[in-house]
């Protein structure tokens, strides 16, 4: 293998023969769209499945809000059902929707296109990854249908209660859920190996690491986090499964349940909490880092300005990822830990605010004096900054041990994490879908419906979660079926709960508008052309839109510049694609080229 390539007279990398990969060419419809090995098809499969199961979780949240806002009016929601709804809503949203959508969906679609590869490096494993994910989703749905119903142990599944009689779904519900998680982790590992190795090994000529778009950086680091953190979930799921089925005592102490001495002895429930949060906290950043990366690109592209502090952004992603592994016990302040232990974790938790604040400042500084286009991706990106800062600031409260103790397990916590890792990343998902939908389908999403959806969602989620902080201050606990008959909770809290519920239904209805937009625009949307946003990154420079199998036609693109050449002084068009050689800049042919619309 030659390590040296001759350069042409201008001193730039020549458009030469990068090692081509052998692509798998499917011949049948089923081979192309069902058992597909093309990362773009797998991405759509992942995204559709994730959004589908996410809708189930959305409906569950409506049912929860029915009970909380109007307690006792709906007879079919009994306490057990309510706990099952809470558990499944959390589990689906965090793992089966957000993780799968960001890494399996956006990762699969964007990594090969953005780094200039024909496909992922292990397409077969990539295909298996999706089918394992689908199996995990099917197992999860099955767990809701078996006798006893879904597990009602909360998404954290704390033992011993998770597998004790009396908790809903303590037998088949939890068994199937744990198996589903194990299958999910195996499937994700196969996909994750692909994402990491593709970024490391399959970048096109000239695509150095520091020329990669921040989207790729975010997904790349999140995948590394996930690969290292998911084994903790895997191990704890297996151990709890053994406790439940074979009667081992990893987590189960000696205890008496309903008057019977159980056969467990000497297990350690705290061990589960450590393992779970060793996965659980990095999981927050597995969701957040891709969102950080994507939002950086959305802001830069739609403000027509290079991202402020690119290298700092890359390092901040790395530092946040590293720190996310040493903060897990801040979820366990009330577990009776050594105070010094709590002090350590409070400190590391607050330190994370530093690289995170760097990112927020850099986004705002990118907007500063930018040529801001208030397109839908930009609106969602700005909404993300607001929501993320709000949610992050309440994190400072909860990160401190003394402040956390009275707030622990109240609605304040619910409001905090929904703002910071629920709404904020989901806003990025919407922005990203508006941004890349034209590349995936060749058509634009309808902007009027989009704006309706945006404003209802943005304002509506504030109407839901902002008042919820006050409920938390009053001491309203989370996960309670009903709070009637308690003297410390005033009547106004019930009124507020009803208001939150109504806001939640309105926001939920707005999501139907978004789904309608997705489907209707696929058939009737405006043809978008190849590069509707005049963006620089490689996925917008493909010869066809949507890109064909193999992505880039005959020759792979050669990269001459970073991903953020917007508004370069002295250049006519306000953007220079990454694959434009310097000698072609004066002619500015890329801006006049007839757009190769795929519609």
């Amino acid at each position, binding site marked *: 293998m030659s390590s040296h390539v001759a350069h042409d007279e201008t001193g730039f990398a020549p458009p030469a023969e990068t090692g081509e990969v052998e692509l798998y060419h499917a011949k049948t419809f089923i081979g192309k769209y069902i058992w597909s090995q093309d990362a773009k098809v797998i991405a759509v499969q992942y995204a559709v499945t994730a959004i589908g199961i996410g809708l189930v979780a959305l409906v569950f949240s409506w049912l929860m809000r029915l009970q909380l806002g109007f307690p006792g009016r709906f007879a079919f929601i009994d306490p057990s059902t309510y706990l099952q709804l809470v558990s499944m809503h959390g589990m689906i949203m965090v793992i089966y929707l957000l993780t799968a959508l960001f890494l399996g969906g956006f990762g699969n679609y964007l990594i090969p296109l953005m780094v200039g590869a024909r496909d992922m490096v292990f397409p077969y494993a990539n295909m298996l990854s999706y089918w394992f994910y689908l199996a995990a989703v099917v197992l999860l749905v099955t767990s809701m249908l078996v006798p006893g119903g879904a597990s009602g142990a909360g998404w954290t599944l704390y033992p011993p209660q998770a597998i004790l009689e009396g908790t809903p779904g303590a037998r088949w519900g939890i068994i199937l859920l744990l198996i589903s998680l194990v299958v999910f982790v195996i499937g994700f590992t196969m996909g994750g190996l692909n994402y990491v190795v593709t970024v490391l090994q399959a970048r096109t000529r000239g695509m150095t690491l520091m020329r990669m778009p921040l989207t790729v950086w975010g997904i790349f680091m999140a995948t590394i986090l996930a690969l290292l953190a998911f084994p903790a979930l895997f191990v704890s799921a297996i*151990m709890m499964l053994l406790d439940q089925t074979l009667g081992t*005592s*990893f987590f189960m102490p000696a205890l008496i349940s309903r008057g019977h001495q159980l056969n467990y002895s*000497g297990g350690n429930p705290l061990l589960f909490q450590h393992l779970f949060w060793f996965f659980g906290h990095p999981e927050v950043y597995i969701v957040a880092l891709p969102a950080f990366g994507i939002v950086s690109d959305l802001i830069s592209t739609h403000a027509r300005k290079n991202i402020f502090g690119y*290298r700092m952004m890359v390092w901040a992603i790395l530092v946040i990822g590293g720190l996310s592994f040493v903060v897990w016990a801040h979820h366990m302040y009330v577990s009776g830990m050594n105070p010094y232990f709590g002090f350590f974790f409070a400190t590391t938790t607050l330190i994370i605010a530093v690289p995170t604040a760097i990112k927020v400042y850099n986004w705002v500084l990118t907007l500063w004096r930018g040529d801001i286009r208030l397109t839908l991706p930009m609106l969602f990106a700005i909404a993300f900054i607001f929501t993320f800062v709000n949610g992050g600031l309440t994190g400072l409260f909860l990160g401190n041990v003394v402040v956390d103790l009275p707030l622990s397990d109240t609605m304040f916590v619910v409001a905090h994490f929904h703002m910071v890792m629920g709404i904020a990343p989901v806003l990025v998902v919407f922005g990203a879908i508006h941004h890349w939908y034209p590349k995936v389908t060749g058509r634009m999403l309808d902007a009027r419906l989009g704006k309706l959806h945006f404003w209802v969602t943005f304002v509506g989620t504030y109407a839901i979660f902002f008042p919820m902080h006050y409920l938390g201050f009053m001491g309203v606990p989370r996960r309670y079926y009903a709070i009637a008959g308690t003297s410390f909770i005033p009547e106004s809290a019930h009124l507020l709960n009803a208001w939150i519920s109504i806001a939640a239904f309105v926001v939920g209805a707005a999501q139907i508008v978004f789904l309608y937009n997705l489907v209707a625009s696929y058939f009737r949307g405006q043809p978008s052309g190849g590069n509707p946003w005049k963006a620089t990154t490689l996925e917008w420079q493909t010869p066809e839109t949507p890109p064909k199998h193999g992505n880039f036609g005959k020759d792979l693109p050669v990269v001459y510049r970073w991903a953020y050449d917007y508004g370069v002084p002295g250049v006519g068009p306000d953007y220079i694609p990454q694959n434009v050689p310097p000698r072609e800049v004066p002619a500015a042919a890329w801006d006049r080229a007839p757009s190769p619309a795929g519609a």
Partner: protein
Amino acid sequence: MTIGMVFLSFLMAIIVGWLFRQTVHVQPWRAQQAVPVLPTAPAAKAGLWVFLAVASSLFVLVVSASSMRLGLADWSPIPRPRLLLLNTALLAFASLSMESAARAGRRGDVGALRPWLVAGGVLTAGFVLGQLVVWKQLHDAAYGMSSSAAAAFFYLFTAAHGLHVLGGLVAWARAVSRAWKGAKPAALRLNVELCATYWHYLLGVWVVLYALLVSGGAGLAICSSNPL
């Protein structure tokens, strides 16, 4: 969890060092110079190394968990199965055979590669069989999975490692079929080299686990000094 943190710090150090090399002195907004093309290792090799990091994370977490459980009062070790020593030797010889096969592959000597490859697989199958016999012995001596926490962790360790060995045997079977079907030498060589790397890893993990299982106070105190 301290063990887990140490392991992760080590990995983070690698990542930070790697990224530092990539970013120091780089000014992406100015860099339009020629970019030399670096020789890249085959993707499968990089994939294997990333996978080894993931698997290590799994093993480290299990060790971490058992070391946390160890401190509790009712810990009672199980007897030390003597057969484990033989099994360890089998796996060590398997790893050596794989290395010899990989070296033969690098010389392009398929004739020498085949017997070493087969020997490696057979020895490994012997290791798996031996581990199953150990399970049977323990089970017959009333040290079943739910008999005590130490027993449960013993089964968990050996099962986690054993499943990784079985996965290796699947890759080995593919290499064997390639060696006899006359695949391209380069492809076969890569296959066998990957197998060899993985076998050294399996051996390394097993040696560490074995040491932790049997070395009493210094290790995880899962097995006592009484032989079985």
